[in-house]
């Protein structure tokens, strides 16, 4: 009756969302007086695999690297190894959801994504998730014996809980359907999903040439950069920076909105941020109603001062 966790890595290191999922799973395991088994499909070193034990995994089934993008082989292996498990935990990343959704149909387990809290009950599994583009929190009950939980990033946290963790190597074959041709890495950029701080800017910046100060502010803070939808639509910034209801949903500890008006579609993707700061020339900009701190002023004056002030404390 162990709890199974799917793990995901990037460039041979586990993602933060994986450590969150393992932390979460080990708390659910406590509720059920059982243990956590993590399953990996990457090329992580034994040292990296052992890190899963720091967050509560007692065993890792470490499969050989399979063709990237292959959700069939991974979900097959997970199905075979979760026969005795009633709860399987994933992160809510694209890759996790691709595999989790397949698995859910394979083992007929109700699947709940964007989960933000521990289950309030474990039988039947009942928990809360973000819904309606974070405009609502929905309570969901799982009717099937097995449940798949996909945990939203930055909602539970990484919690240390050391366990002696054994590693068992497994061999699996890729399915023949998918041929991996390569990957393009968004170079030098911090991932929006994992960033603790995001510096985001909108049409108020007037043109792409003015983003240098945004990048400088982000660099000073160790933050990722984001933008509003029109900014990526007109090509000032790349699409992967677009946040909001139709872009990425993010939930950092700190979100800076600079020259962004605060349209409902923008807020829908960012209002799970713990603290929001607005810088806008227009005191009537709707964003001020949703933020925690605000400065009414010109970004071109405020941002350079802000960088200077932050450098003083860093």
């Amino acid at each position, binding site marked *: 009756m162990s709890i199974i966790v799917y793990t995901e890595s990037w460039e041979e290191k586990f993602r933060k969302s994986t450590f969150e999922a393992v932390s979460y799973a080990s708390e659910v395991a406590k509720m059920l007086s059982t243990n956590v088994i993590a399953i990996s499909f990457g090329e992580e070193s034994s040292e990296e695999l052992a890190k899963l034990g720091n967050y509560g995994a007692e065993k890792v089934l470490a499969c050989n690297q399979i063709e990237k993008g292959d*959700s069939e082989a991974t*979900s097959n292996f997970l199905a075979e190894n979760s026969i005795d498990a009633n709860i399987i935990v994933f992160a809510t990343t694209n890759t996790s959801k691709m595999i*989790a959704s397949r698995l859910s*149909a394979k083992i*007929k387990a109700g699947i709940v994504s964007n989960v933000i809290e521990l289950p309030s009950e474990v039988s039947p599994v009942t928990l809360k998730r973000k819904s309606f583009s974070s405009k609502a929190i929905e309570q969901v009950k799982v009717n099937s014996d097995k449940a798949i939980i996909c945990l939203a990033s930055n909602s539970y946290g990484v919690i240390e809980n050391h366990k002696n963790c054994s590693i068992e190597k497994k061999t699996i074959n890729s399915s023949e359907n998918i*041929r991996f041709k390569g990957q393009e890495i968004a170079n030098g950029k911090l991932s929006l999903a994992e960033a603790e701080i995001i510096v985001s800017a909108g049409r108020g910046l007037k043109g792409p040439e003015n983003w240098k100060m945004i990048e400088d502010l982000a660099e000073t803070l160790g933050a990722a950069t984001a933008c509003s939808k029109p900014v990526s639509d007109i090509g000032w910034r790349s699409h992967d920076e677009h946040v909001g209801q*139709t872009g990425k949903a993010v939930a950092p500890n700190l979100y800076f909105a600079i020259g962004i008006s605060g349209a409902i579609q923008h807020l829908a993707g960012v209002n799970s941020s713990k603290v929001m700061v607005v810088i806008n020339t227009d005191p009537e900009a709707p964003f001020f109603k949703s933020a925690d701190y605000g400065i009414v002023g010109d970004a071109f004056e405020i941002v350079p*001062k802000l960088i200077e002030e932050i450098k003083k404390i860093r």
Partner: protein
Amino acid sequence: MNILVCISSVPDTTTKINFSDNGSKFDSSGVQFVINPYDEFGLTKAIMLKEKHGGKVTTITVGELNIEPVIRKALAIGADEAVRVNMSPKDSYSTAVEISNYISENTFDLIICGKESSDYNGGVVGGIIAELTNRPFVNACNGLSITQNTANLYREIDGGKENLEIDLPIIIGGQKGLVEESELRIPNMRGIMQARTKPLLVIEPKMNDILTESISFEKPSERGDCKIISNENVSELVSLLQNEAKVI
């Protein structure tokens, strides 16, 4: 090439979300429904592929009679025919089972879902259909081209994108990048007229299991008032972020 586009009908993005019956139901009164934004990219892509390779574009939606205006809009944009499964969607699994039943009785080379629906944000219907109909699945797909019987795809991952090649038939979960925002088709007068007479087939659901159930909804807790800091005093903001909010 036969393409099926799964279209979910969702509240317009400007909707203020409210709940009725003590927070147990989404209150749809006065709400304008639209094609799920992610599905709009898929629909336009399907029409462009048909223009290039020939074939037919069919849409399928699980929903009751009141969503037909959304289906007609998809027909006006350029789908050839539409299917409606006459059932109010209850959960991802039962919705996917109904769509899979229809797929199994027909032949499609390409099935396009959206990355997620902007109401319940499950992001799982496409994967469930893929498993039930035994096809390869690529989600968060932001690039697709087809040569003969092979699809070349891009998939967004955290940190970059993957390039994959798969033989048809396949299922994708699409998003922006399949086509650009500026390429999105909108209905013109001729399309709207034609849509009135295009086939809209209504099929009855085959009852199936519901695996997850929505019990109640609440609004996220409100933020306190926004603290306004004078633009002469940027250092105060930094000090508040450091000492009060403790986020830097």
